[in-house]
């Protein structure tokens, strides 16, 4: 009994208190906002959570693998939306598969360089971002891409009250959590992020683990691209702009450690909910889009600072 109590008190670290207190305050603030519980705002939040959430699941894998983030995931979302729309002529299922494979491949390529050669992950992702934007602009000429076929209409529908994308996001999050918790590659990714040298010593194939984390990130980002393209009926290179920042913010707000090796996909999802609720409350209270960056940045800064205990060497 006392032992359990002690554990609880010990678990209530400043970071946890901050998180609990912050979450509670946010909830009260949200509920006091007129229109927050309206059907329209709830549905629009569900959609936003689903789009950002898919990217967050992937970003979480990169963070947990010890490589902080890829700045290229937003561009990957956009590029996948274009690829999906352009290949719809081949049918819906092939188009989805092509887009997912495309996202996984271009992101796994970053993982190859980071995993095998231990290249600087941030630098590699900046290079990938520049390459994706440059090549896409060259190929599309900056044009919006309209569907080469139909069959994605049901993407816009609802199943049991919830938007279609929410179901896919839920599936994506559960699958991600299952991979992380119950598969060997998931364990390898966590061990690699926790201590690369130790992981190598106990026989983890570190490069493969890093590549897997990046490939998963690319696939989930592509899923977000597909969902966004289906929602807007076209694909373009601006569709995923800023998603990389919202996703990393969600990852850190949810409590995934920025140094890697700890955290879960579901924590990232909790972070997405928090970020999206903040955005929605700001919008309902009449603050324009320009405030969202600032608030997201300050929240991110605060959360990173709150992680300092665990990061101090």
């Amino acid at each position, binding site marked *: 009994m006392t032992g359990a109590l002690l554990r609880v008190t010990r678990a209530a670290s400043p970071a946890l208190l901050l998180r609990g207190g912050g979450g509670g305050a946010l909830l009260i603030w949200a509920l006091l906002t007129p229109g927050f519980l309206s059907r329209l705002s709830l549905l629009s939040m569900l959609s936003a959570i689903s789009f950002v959430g898919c990217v967050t699941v992937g970003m979480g894998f990169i963070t947990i693998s010890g490589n902080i983030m890829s700045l290229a995931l937003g561009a990957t979302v956009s590029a996948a939306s274009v690829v999906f729309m352009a290949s719809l002529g081949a049918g819906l299922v092939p188009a989805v598969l092509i887009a997912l494979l495309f996202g996984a491949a271009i992101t796994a390529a970053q993982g190859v360089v980071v995993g095998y050669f231990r290249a600087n992950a941030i630098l590699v992702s900046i290079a990938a971002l520049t390459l994706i934007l440059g090549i896409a602009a060259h190929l599309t000429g900056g044009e919006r891409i309209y569907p080469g076929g139909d069959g994605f209409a049901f993407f816009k529908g609802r199943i049991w009250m919830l938007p279609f994308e929410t179901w896919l996001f839920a599936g994506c999050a559960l699958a991600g959590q299952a991979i992380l918790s119950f598969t060997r590659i998931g364990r390898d990714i966590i061990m690699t992020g926790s201590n690369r040298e130790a992981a190598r010593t106990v026989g983890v194939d570190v490069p493969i683990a890093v590549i897997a984390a990046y490939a998963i990130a690319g696939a989930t980002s592509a899923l977000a691209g597909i969902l966004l393209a289906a929602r807007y009926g076209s694909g373009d290179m601006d569709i995923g702009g800023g998603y990389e920042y919202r996703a990393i913010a969600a990852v850190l707000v949810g409590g995934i450690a920025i140094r890697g090796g700890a955290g879960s996909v579901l924590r990232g999802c909790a972070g997405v909910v928090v970020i999206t609720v903040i955005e929605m409350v700001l919008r309902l209270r009449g603050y324009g889009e320009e405030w969202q960056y600032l608030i997201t940045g*300050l929240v991110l800064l605060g959360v990173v600072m709150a992680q300092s205990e665990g990061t101090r060497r």
Partner: protein
Amino acid sequence: MMALCRNAFARDLRPYTLLGIVIVIVGVIDHGTGFFFRGATLFSIMQIFATYGLVSLAVGLSLLVREFDISVAGMVSLAGAVAVLAGARDPWLGVGLALLVGLVGGAAQGLIITRLGLGSVGVTLGGLLSFQGLTYVLTGNQSISFDHVELALALNAPIGVVLSVRSMIVIAAFVLAAVVMQFSRVGRDILATGGDRRASTMAGVNTGGIVFGVFAASGLLCALSGVVLSYGLAAASPAALSDVLAPAAAGAIIGGVSVVGGRGRPAGIAAGVLVLCVLRSGLNAAGASADMLDIATGLVLLLIAVLDAPELARRLTEWRLHRRGA
């Protein structure tokens, strides 16, 4: 001959070698039209240099101490907006306030990083979004024009065919940085901190102070860059984040700054930025679109990220042995 080649591609000389190669390639492609070797082209190269140089220097400084300041893009936008808004009546007030914002913003990040023992990427990511958000809030998310058009003209007016006040300010900052790095104790301490922080601390270097100072300097350099840019354009507009970070990092890395810290020089960074400027000007002359420059920048960044990767040599040896064994 081999030795000469190897020396030319050694890190310290690499930026100058690359610059020479790029100039020769652009000159050959351009040969006959005489476009490239005209004064106007050199002038435009230096104007591009003035746009990216200081941000590259800022990123390079942070890489020298084995950190990564990714907030630079946000600070350039923020300082530009502050300068234009506060300088409406008195441009010097705008300059002073913008530089103060840069110094304080950079110092705050440096303080958080050194005091809390945090990784610089996370902290400066928060800084990047906060600075960018503050810019959006200040400008109401739109481009703000600056009434002192005469100032913009004066900043950009050619001086001695190739230079302008704008590029001379940037060159002066580079010279100052080079002198500090080369001849002062701070310069040596910066390199030592980046090379091996623990050993430097043991040897009596105030590594915390050095890292703090580097981030403050980075903020100041970005602010100066933002002021010069927005006054030169007679406008401040929130730039897309990726438009600044990629060329800035590329310039520093091409300039011989090692991502594992402790190596690099301001003169090398200047040469690295010039490589990109010549490339852009050459591609323009060849009629290629801006996309090609993005692709070239991305490829070069990727290539150097691989070449500088700590485990590249080991992997290559492994694969060679493996093939021999098979």
